[in-house]
């Protein structure tokens, strides 16, 4: 049974005055139905670009190329914009990071919810409103009917993010892409929004791509993940596999940087990854982490840095053999 979404060899290049920035280089992954797949990485690693590329929402200055993008069995690698417009919002929806600016200030919540359904389905305005009220209640918003007449600036950040979730469910999509959905929210609200996302996803059997930089969010929410660095996927696997035995030096380094209450001794110095992320402009060869990697060796600059696939779901991009990885992760 083919996966809900299969992406092979996705590549996104941005033309900048300083040169061509390879934001996404040869990224491949797949998402099963009802599964939460997470794209993890620090800012500028290309995770949002990857999601926008799949949705076809890239800025004008970006060029996308891919060997294959299959969505619900349909090859949309070279789908025409008209076809993509029909898919976006209906079969594949997206939730963004900034709840304060993601809604149009000049229209009511109800109007913005109903317009999705009215655009994709031939339904009456009354049916669209009923669907909107039903979903607002499902995402835990009290007095849903009266909320329809309110404007975005009258709601708090947490409430607006719930509206965005409801909006993404209006047409019953099969894939939801959430780009840092809780980064702009407070800690207590974050936990609620994440549990809401997971429960909604399980109930409607949708696939979800969760984009975040917070390893804590990934550990607690995702089923499988891909770690991205400087435009490349450096490691994939299930959350249990990667967190208990990270294979790529960057993943290991990332996990050791995080102060974990109860585990890392307070006041003791944290492990760090020295140096800065290189800017992927111009020609790129070999492993892009070698200038910061403790196990770097001349071969790392060679051509042969391909993804080592241990099992279909588990892989990493490094020439080190698994057994050569000295220490276990601190998780």
């Amino acid at each position, binding site marked *: 049974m083919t996966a809900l979404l299969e992406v092979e060899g996705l590549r996104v290049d941005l033309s900048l005055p300083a040169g061509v920035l390879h934001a996404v280089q040869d990224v491949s992954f797949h998402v099963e139905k009802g599964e939460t797949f997470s794209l993890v990485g620090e800012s500028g690693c290309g995770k949002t670009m990857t999601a926008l590329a799949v*949705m076809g929402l890239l800025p004008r200055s970006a060029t996308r190329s891919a060997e294959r993008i299959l969505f619900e069995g349909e090859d949309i690698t070279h789908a025409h914009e008209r076809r993509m417009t029909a898919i976006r*919002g209906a079969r594949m929806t997206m939730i963004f990071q900034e709840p304060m600016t993601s809604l149009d200030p000049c229209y009511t919540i109800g109007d913005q919810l109903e317009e999705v359904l009215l655009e994709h389905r031939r339904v009456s305005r009354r049916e669209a409103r009923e669907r909107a009220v039903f979903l607002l209640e499902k995402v835990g918003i009290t007095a849903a009917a009266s909320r329809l007449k309110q404007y975005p*600036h009258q709601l708090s950040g947490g409430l607006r993010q719930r509206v965005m979730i409801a909006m993404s469910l209006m047409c019953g999509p099969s894939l939801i892409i959430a780009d840092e959905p809780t980064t702009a929210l407070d800690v207590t609200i974050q936990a609620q929004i994440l549990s809401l996302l997971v429960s909604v996803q399980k109930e409607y059997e949708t696939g979800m791509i969760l984009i975040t930089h917070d390893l804590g969010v990934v550990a607690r929410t995702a089923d499988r993940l891909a770690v991205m660095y400087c435009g490349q996927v450096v490691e994939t696997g299930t959350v249990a596999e990667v967190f208990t035995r990270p294979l790529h030096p960057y993943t290991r380094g990332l996990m050791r940087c995080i102060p974990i209450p109860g585990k890392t001794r307070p006041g003791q110095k944290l492990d760090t990854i020295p140096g800065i992320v290189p800017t992927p402009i111009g020609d790129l060869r070999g492993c892009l982490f070698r200038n910061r990697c403790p196990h770097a060796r001349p071969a790392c600059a060679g051509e042969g840095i391909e993804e080592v696939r241990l099992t279909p779901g588990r892989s990493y991009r490094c020439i080190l053999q698994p057994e050569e990885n000295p220490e276990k992760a601190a998780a």
Partner: protein
Amino acid sequence: MLQYTLKRLVVTFFVILVVSLVSFMLIRVSGDPAIALAGEGATQQEIEYVRHHYGFDRPLIIQYVDWAKKALQGDLGESPYFNEPVLKMIRERIGVTMTLGVSALLFALFVSIPLGVLASIRPNTWIDRVALTISVMGQAMPSFWFGLIMIIFFGVTLRWLPISGSGSPAHYVMPTIALGYYATPAFMRLIRSGMLEVLSSDHIRTARAKGLRWGKILYKHALRNAIIPVVALAAVQLGFMLGGSIVIESVFALHGIGYLAWVSIGRSDLPVVQAIILLLSMIYVVLTFLGDLLNAFLDPRIRVR
């Protein structure tokens, strides 16, 4: 919404008060009105008579209060030159200036909104460059000179349009273009930058992610947000244009209050000049007030607390 209106009303009242004070003092302070009114070659004795007759010898404040009291009852004094009540003269001519102002504004909006929107949708294309050229040229073109050129070209050589007077609508074509063209750049620049900003905003990206048709996104979400500042600018620009009518009306000999102001200044007919300055200021203040109201109506963030 109501208390937003009340707040604006109070500010408007104070502005009118201060404007009347300033325009009153400006005229009195910048030169001896008695000499100006008495005219060249007037003997000292005649100047003294004029000073006493018009009460210029009283302290300024009392002159102002006296003037303000009468102004409130609609008596803006008498023009020494035309010896007619100033209010009547203004009422006869205000129509011409208002028609010119409004049609110039419509012309400016009619040219700048489509061009501005098109330029923002396809930035750095030929349409964008055309829009920018028109806007840069508009800002650099002296409106009076542009009027004269049109007179030569359309009026004399081609004989399409009458070159002076204010009889038929045809009389207004060239003055409208001359006055309106100067305001076009401000509108076009605002609409273009407003649209560009809105088009790159998060909620337009959300609209695209919702799979809405591009036309609908443009019209319903982008233009609706970008038009808000244009309304406020329209009110301000109309005010400026009325102020600038003095130049255009003198070029095309259109008998509006601008022309009257120019003629009165020539004869230092102070009551008329001051009345026109006050009237134009009040029109500007009322226009900006209406602009704010329309703005509040369009923008729910102000309308709904």
